[in-house]
């Protein structure tokens, strides 16, 4: 019950992921209640299937609150799949299912029947690999999520737009053209606009799927800086193919290979002193 109340106190309106009994169902022992503020997402023995083909095998991973967790691994190893499990974006694909195990956020199993996936996605925002600003003005892009929640007070919207754009280190570049199309921005600016759009709805977690893969080094550096700043307010999970990026901006790193979690530890450990020869080979660039 501690877990549920922390969830309620952080966000004022509408307690979501409803504060009922933490999952002790399905014959599985409930995960030991984590100390509040420590473990936010608890991925527990998850098997995931696309139709008949299994993409994730027995994933066990705990994401810590207000930390940056990086997912690394060769292409096709299931990083995006796991990331998209966390806000149930995989629900959109026909025939997908979590066949075994559970994913808990603040102790609440996100696949429970009484979990509203809409509320979940408000709490767990996402930034996509291919930046996808909507073909609307910058202002409308940022306010999109808020308007969905029924915020229509102009002053409040203005305030959040400024705050989010500042939060995404974009304010100075776009403050004079808030009502110009978001598509008129450069690639790096577009990606930061998407980050601003995601933080405007004040999620707890931001999932980023290779947010810099289409950006040049300068734009990448800006986004990385941004990630540093954001981690004081948000828990961030980032998928990346860029080893330096993972080393630079994450606190914990998970290495995946062929749908399995090979190693999960502090970023320092993964890069300096990996416990698994496969991890060592991958981070040193010898395969992958």
């Amino acid at each position, binding site marked *: 019950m501690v877990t549920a109340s922390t969830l309620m106190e952080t966000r004022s309106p509408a307690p979501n992921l409803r504060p009922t009994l933490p999952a002790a169902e399905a014959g599985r022992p409930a995960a030991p209640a984590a100390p509040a503020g420590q473990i936010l997402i608890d991925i527990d023995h998850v098997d995931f299937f696309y139709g008949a083909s299994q993409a994730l095998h027995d994933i066990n991973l705990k994401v810590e609150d207000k930390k940056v967790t990086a997912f690394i691994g060769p292409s096709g190893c299931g990083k995006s799949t796991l990331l998209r499990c966390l806000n149930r974006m995989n629900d959109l694909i026909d025939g997908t299912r979590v066949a075994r195990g559970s994913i808990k956020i603040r102790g609440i199993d996100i696949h429970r029947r009484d979990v509203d996936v809409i509320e979940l*996605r408000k709490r767990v925002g*996402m930034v996509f690999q*291919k930046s*996808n600003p909507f*073909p609307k003005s910058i202002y409308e892009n940022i306010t*999109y*999520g808020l308007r*969905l929640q029924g915020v229509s007070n102009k002053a409040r919207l203005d305030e959040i737009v400024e705050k989010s754009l500042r939060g995404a280190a974009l304010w100075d570049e776009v403050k004079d053209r808030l009502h110009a199309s978001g598509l008129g921005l450069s690639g790096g600016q577009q990606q930061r606009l998407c980050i601003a759009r995601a933080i405007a*709805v004040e999620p707890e977690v931001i999932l980023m799927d290779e947010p810099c893969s289409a950006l040049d080094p300068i734009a990448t550096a800006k986004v990385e800086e941004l990630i540093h700043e954001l981690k004081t307010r948000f828990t961030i999970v980032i998928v990346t193919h860029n080893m330096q990026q993972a080393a630079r901006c994450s606190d914990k790193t998970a290495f995946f290979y062929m749908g399995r979690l090979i190693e999960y530890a502090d970023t320092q450990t993964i890069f300096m002193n990996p416990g698994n020869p496969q991890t060592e080979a991958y981070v040193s660039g010898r395969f992958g």
Partner: protein
Amino acid sequence: MSTELSAGHVFQARVTLAQRWEQACFWLFRGATYLVLLCGAVVFLNIFVKGSRTVFQPTAPFINTAFFTESPESLHVFVWQGKKMEMGDREHRAFVAQHPEAAKIKTEDYVYSAGGIFPCIVGTVLLVVGSMTIALVLGVSAAVYLNEYARDGTFIRFVRLAILNLAGVPSIVFGLFGFGMFVLFFDWNVSLIAGWFTLAFMVLPVIITASEESLKAVPKGFREGSLALGATKWQTIRKNVLPYALPGILTSSILGIARVAGETAPIMFTAAYVVRDKLPWDVDKFSDFFFQGVMALPYHIYVVSSKIPQNEYTERVQYGTAFVFLLIVALIATTSIVLRNHLRNRYKW
């Protein structure tokens, strides 16, 4: 030295068989294109030249306003004091009232050859607006369901096949269907509403298919981005998919408009009257509006060309009507194109 010159260089032009074929094919394709152009030009010029004799006039205001604003009338032709007179019914009555002796003069009467086609214009516009509204609401809803909600399965594949087949059904069959279903079974009689539904069903396949194409063209990222912000599926569709698909849907409805306005077969049993004195808004109570038949441009052309004896005066009505018809279709199409371009400029990606 000299042998080298006469043999030419490696790139020396030679007439080969392939080049002859190239030339032949080029001219064949070019010729075909010009032939098409020529046919189109002949059709349009024919209607324009003959129609403009009716629609325009040599004296101010240069446009024959009566043709646009009056109902069809019989034409009376008679000789009056050695002069040949051509008068519409109303004009003739007034004339007789003024000159009572004219009543005894024998006149030759030609039905529908005088007056104008105002009721037909009104009827066609009403038919187009009503049926396109129905078709767009039904068609876009179905397309949204098929493209955004439905999971691909046997049933959905069957639905798509049915839609595809519906597109190939001749319009006269739709007319027959509308007659059996709306006119007889629903007991709506020959009425605007029966015509609306018949025409709507006729263009539905076009609208559904094209709407689906336009929905498919909206990048998946917009949907995912919206859903990831906590939008419901319908909020996503309404705010972040449909607005961008609208230009494409409008483009398809332009083709639909031309078909709806032009088809005669579906309305001849369901909505069109040969002649009707009252205008559509001359009704006792509001509900009667939907249950009245109307005159329509294509059906008027059909009636004037096949249901009455042909004479020197009928051509005037036929081509005048055809001309006005083309004008109206062009007008509606232009409006939709302008609207579409406006929307397209607003939402570009």
